[in-house]
């Protein structure tokens, strides 16, 4: 047996060992074995460097060695191996494969060069920072110096992302109405690409620049019109959502004309939540240095809220209804049911947060029986009850508690039906995580 063949055989056996190591979770061992395999395959290929008539064996070994070099992160070596293969007389189909591999290597090398060059990285970040949304949180009642709670930061970032993704979805459908058959898949891909980045940070109490990279690393897979849309969608999102005076009805009215109530709910509810009186923080926009406040936000006035996110069309605000919180003493077996005589104290609430538990979800004729009770947080801010489930990305509000629960169940079932109707490939990462959660709590479905 020739040296080349012996080395090649050892390399292939080592690749098999590496694959076994990977399957048993030994990633370090896998990496070491893969490198050994690459070294052996490279040696086997070089044995045939001058055997130009040993085709297709010669180019197959060089191609295989180049592939292993890529998998081992040795891109320069991979480049050399492809060049050596092409230096011979590879069959035309292998030439095409080698060129494809070469392109792949060139892309990797560009990327490595890009990541290793501080000047380019700086320029890239500067580019994103120029287009970023600069936000700042400060605690309303500082208790730990000026530190803001992590929960508040996470809450704010999630809401900005939720609003942006909904904006992206709605805007794309409006701009490219009926243009694409596979629009759901396209939007899912765009959302993956548009996942916002933190491109700058400062302790101020918390200040961050948020931007998606939709314009620098432009993916080549899209047509020119989509690329143009991608380049300015975040700018338009910032204008529509953050440059609006939420206490001026005339300023908000164009938004009410531009978007349907459902679209407005999806885009603006998460943002309006950032301005709530009951929040522990103040939210503002700043300049890029986070020092100068560009815009402060106050809780949204009722006329603006009614215009922007109408509670329920045709339902009147209830008169003379108050939410009470009662304290009382009653026998343990009563389960907390209080008769009038057992109440010690009752107070009117203008805001409240409480939880309810659902073991089934119903809407029209469809029912979902849950394997474990679903706990839902309800927020009351007189006179509106609301549910903002970040986990499910369901937001509903109502003047009436019963309507609120009905609306939530309707949204839950619509969401379930919508996700169930899609293949896994069509789902975004967020949708997949929601769907997995729903599947984990839904025991059975009855129609």
């Amino acid at each position, binding site marked *: 047996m*020739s040296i080349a063949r012996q080395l090649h055989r050892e390399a292939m056996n080592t690749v098999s060992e590496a694959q076994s190591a990977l399957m048993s979770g030994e990633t370090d061992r896998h990496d070491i074995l893969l490198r050994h395999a690459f070294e052996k395959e490279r040696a086997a290929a070089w044995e045939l460097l001058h055997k130009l008539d040993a085709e297709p064996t010669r180019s197959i070994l060089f191609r295989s060695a180049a592939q292993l070099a890529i998998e081992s992160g040795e891109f320069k070596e991979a480049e050399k191996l492809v060049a050596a293969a092409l230096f011979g007389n590879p069959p035309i189909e292998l030439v095409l*494969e080698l060129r494809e591999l070469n392109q792949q290597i060139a892309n990797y090398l560009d990327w490595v060069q890009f990541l290793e060059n501080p000047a380019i990285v700086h320029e890239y970040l500067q580019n994103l920072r120029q287009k970023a949304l600069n936000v700042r949180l400060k605690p309303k009642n500082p208790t730990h110096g000026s530190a803001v709670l992590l929960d508040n930061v996470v809450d704010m970032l999630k809401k900005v992302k939720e609003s942006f993704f909904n904006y992206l979805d709605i805007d794309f459908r409006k701009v490219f109405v009926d243009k694409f058959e596979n629009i759901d898949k396209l939007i899912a891909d765009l959302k993956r690409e548009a996942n916002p980045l933190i491109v700058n940070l400062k302790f101020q109490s918390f200040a961050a620049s948020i931007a998606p990279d939709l314009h620098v690393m432009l993916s080549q897979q899209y047509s020119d019109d989509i690329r143009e849309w991608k380049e300015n969608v975040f700018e338009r999102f910032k204008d529509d959502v953050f440059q609006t005076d939420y206490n001026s009805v005339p300023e908000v009215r164009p938004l009410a004309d531009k978007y349907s109530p459902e679209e407005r709910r999806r885009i603006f509810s998460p943002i309006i939540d950032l301005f709530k009186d009951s929040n522990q923080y103040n939210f503002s926009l700043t300049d890029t240095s986070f020092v100068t406040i560009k815009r402060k936000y106050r809780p949204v006035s009722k006329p603006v809220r009614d215009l922007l996110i109408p509670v329920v069309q045709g339902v009147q605000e209830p008169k003379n209804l108050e939410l009470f919180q009662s304290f009382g003493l009653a026998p343990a077996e009563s389960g907390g049911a209080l008769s009038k005589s057992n109440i010690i104290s009752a107070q009117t609430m203008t805001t409240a947060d409480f939880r309810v538990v659902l073991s089934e979800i119903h809407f029209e004729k469809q029912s979902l029986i849950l394997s474990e009770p679903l706990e839902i947080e309800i927020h009351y801010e007189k006179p509106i009850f609301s549910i903002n489930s970040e986990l499910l990305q369901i937001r509903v509000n109502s003047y009436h508690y019963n309507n609120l629960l009905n609306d939530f169940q309707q949204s839950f079932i619509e969401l379930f039906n919508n996700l169930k109707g899609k293949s896994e490939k069509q789902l975004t990462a967020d949708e997949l995580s929601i769907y997995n959660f729903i599947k984990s709590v839904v025991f059975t479905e009855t129609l």
Partner: protein
Amino acid sequence: MKEFNINNIKNICPEISGTQCSFYAEGCAVALEEHGHKVPTELVIDGDFSLKCLLLWDAPTSKRGWREPNDLAHFGAIAIAFHLTTALTEYQVVEQACIGKGGFDYYLCFKEDDPRYDADNFINARLEISGTNKGIEALTKRVRQKLEQVSPSDSWNIPAYVVVTDFVKPLTYIKKK
């Protein structure tokens, strides 16, 4: 009539591990028995060759791990193809062709006693294998598909053998491209 013992793959394909050879051999034995064949069974070989041979095998100790008919046909066909390729052509099996887009399953090289054997140039032919459980019509269709499938590597200027076995009769069709 020539006889092939299915369990003898390791001796004719030394490059393939004994465990893997036993696996293919057992799949082949179960595939044959699932179609009611008993030792010895006559195998008809058609296409570029026209002959009959006898297949022998050891009875599988358990068939509980072999319930999926497509798996049986697939792995059983590999066992038969290894035997027939080695016995009927000037080539032997080198290894699985996993990297690339050639459209075939295994690399073949000239046997060492062939005058064209070159120790350094050990990829001399292609082998594409397939198995069916649906009779002659399905087999013919599969052969056409496989001949088309190997086209991307036709420019390599080395022959391709398409070896398709149907376990109903059983029948193996061998076509060189």
